[in-house]
């Protein structure tokens, strides 16, 4: 029953939604399901908060590695919730100041690491070992130069060449991969609906 009920629900909903896509007569059913999904989506947020708090409290109780940071996590959650509810979320409030002075710089800093890592990865990996690697290297150089104003200013036509590379060879390869990925997703979705793929049931087995 523990497995059969979710599998049955998955199968029924999967088939119904496929049929609904082609049958306008089921539009009102679609509206009802969409409304319920809106409600469920809201509850998922609550579930996320519950999971976060539960996991970190357990970590503190067990004195797991880096358990001190769990206090920081929970304190951050409580702080932002309290100041948001008490003083509001408009510009100039503690909530917004905390967001822009702490969270934004931290996340922007992490994202900015990409610039450094791209440079070191490109230096390490772009070696002309064979013809394909050479083509990749030349294409990369053209796109990098064509993308920035200095390239377009000093090398006439480089921006157009870059656009050609992006619009034709790049697009052709991407479309191929996207079609493959799409078919893979179709197949996996079908397996989930039919109950062949059950790994989402907490390792419920085949």
């Amino acid at each position, binding site marked *: 029953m523990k497995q059969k009920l979710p599998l049955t629900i998955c199968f029924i909903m999967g088939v119904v939604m496929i049929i609904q896509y082609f049958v306008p*007569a089921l539009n009102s059913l679609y509206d009802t399901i969409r409304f319920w999904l809106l409600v469920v989506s809201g509850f998922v947020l609550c579930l996320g908060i519950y999971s976060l708090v539960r996991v970190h409290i357990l970590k503190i109780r*067990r004195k797991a590695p880096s358990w001190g940071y769990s206090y920081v996590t929970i304190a951050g959650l409580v702080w932002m919730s309290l100041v948001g509810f008490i003083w509001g979320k408009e510009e100039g409030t503690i909530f917004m100041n905390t967001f822009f002075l702490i969270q934004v710089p931290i996340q922007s800093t992490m994202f900015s690491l990409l610039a450094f890592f791209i440079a070191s990865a490109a230096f390490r990996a772009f070696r002309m070992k064979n013809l394909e690697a050479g083509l990749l290297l030349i294409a990369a150089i053209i796109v990098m130069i064509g993308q920035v104003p200095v390239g377009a200013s000093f090398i006439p036509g480089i921006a157009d060449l870059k656009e050609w590379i992006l619009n034709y060879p790049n697009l052709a390869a991407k479309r191929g991969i996207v079609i493959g990925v799409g078919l893979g997703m179709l197949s*996996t979705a079908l397996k989930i609906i039919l109950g062949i793929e059950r790994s989402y049931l907490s390792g419920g087995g085949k």
Partner: protein
Amino acid sequence: MVTIYREIRFLTFLFFVPFFFSGILFAQDISSSFNLKAVDKPIDDGGAIEISWSLPKDINIEEIEKLELYRFDPGAAEPVKLGDLKPKQQKFTDESSDERKLRNKTPYIYQLKAIFKDGSQITSEKVEGISKIQWFEKRKFVIFIGTVLSIGLILYCIYKAKTDSNFFIRRMVVIDAIEEGVGRATEMGKPILFVSGTSTINDVATIAAINILSHVAKKCAEYGTRLIVPNKDSIVMTVQQEVVKEAYTSVGKPDAFREEDVFYITDDQMAYVAAVDGIMVREKPATNFFLGMFYAESLILAETGASTGAIQIAGTDAVTQLPFFITACDYTLIGEELYAASAYMSREPLLLGSLKGQDYLKFLIMIAILLGAILYNLGFTFLKDWL
């Protein structure tokens, strides 16, 4: 006196008749030029009629204060006013609501009235509209054929796989790399890090990654290698804990499973990446697996892993992240190879059958693309227009 009165009455009648008839004729001219139409709303489950009109050309729209639309229900004595509309409005959809329902296959009569600023008004002719249920959306016919074909082909291949399990699937190099990676970690006495993407359980790539995790966990259980699985989503963590636990149980080592090695970090993308980078730098795993859906954090993970000297095996269907993984990792599963790998490693006939079905579909798509490209270049666009 009576005679004069009768003559006056007759003359008055004669005087007003032309105006009366001209008024009727004139009104008929104005009402017919409203071009009022009432048609069933297309592609719906009935209970809705679309009314459209265009104001007569000899009316100055600036002189109109508002438009009123009326519906005559069958058997009702008085018409129902549907609403006051703006003068520029040219269409209105009469839909069923909680207060009133439009019955299907029932004729409803509509009439439009234009109210001028000076208080005068003119009415349109009455038109009939009937709402109907549409049972099939015709414009999706080609998609329907494609869906039936796709599902049919995959189901057929799955059915064939049940009866004939000698399916040939070419061996992927990365499968050997996975086993090599686990072996390397065992020899070096270092742990294995498995990151199953940064998406939720809804994502197909996450499910494919979890399948591969099951096999990696079995290998780790057999060799006694530590497996670290940090998670970005708590639901995915729950699933993975069960998967890894079952893997350890299946090889007869349930006690070797460490729940604290399959843990949840945070939902935040960059905070999660920072934590995983920290794990890589501190624990120095011998092998890193990056399988699943990734976003911008892919290069940060891969580069940090490369700096620790680990062998890295990646796989994602996120096309934008593939270049980063290909550059920074030793082996990469590109796109659908991730889904294929999970089927290949399990050797489940049903999974292999669906993989075969996918390949047949891809073959059909290739033929369609080639055919379409050739026909289009020869000037035959019927295939493109039809599809």
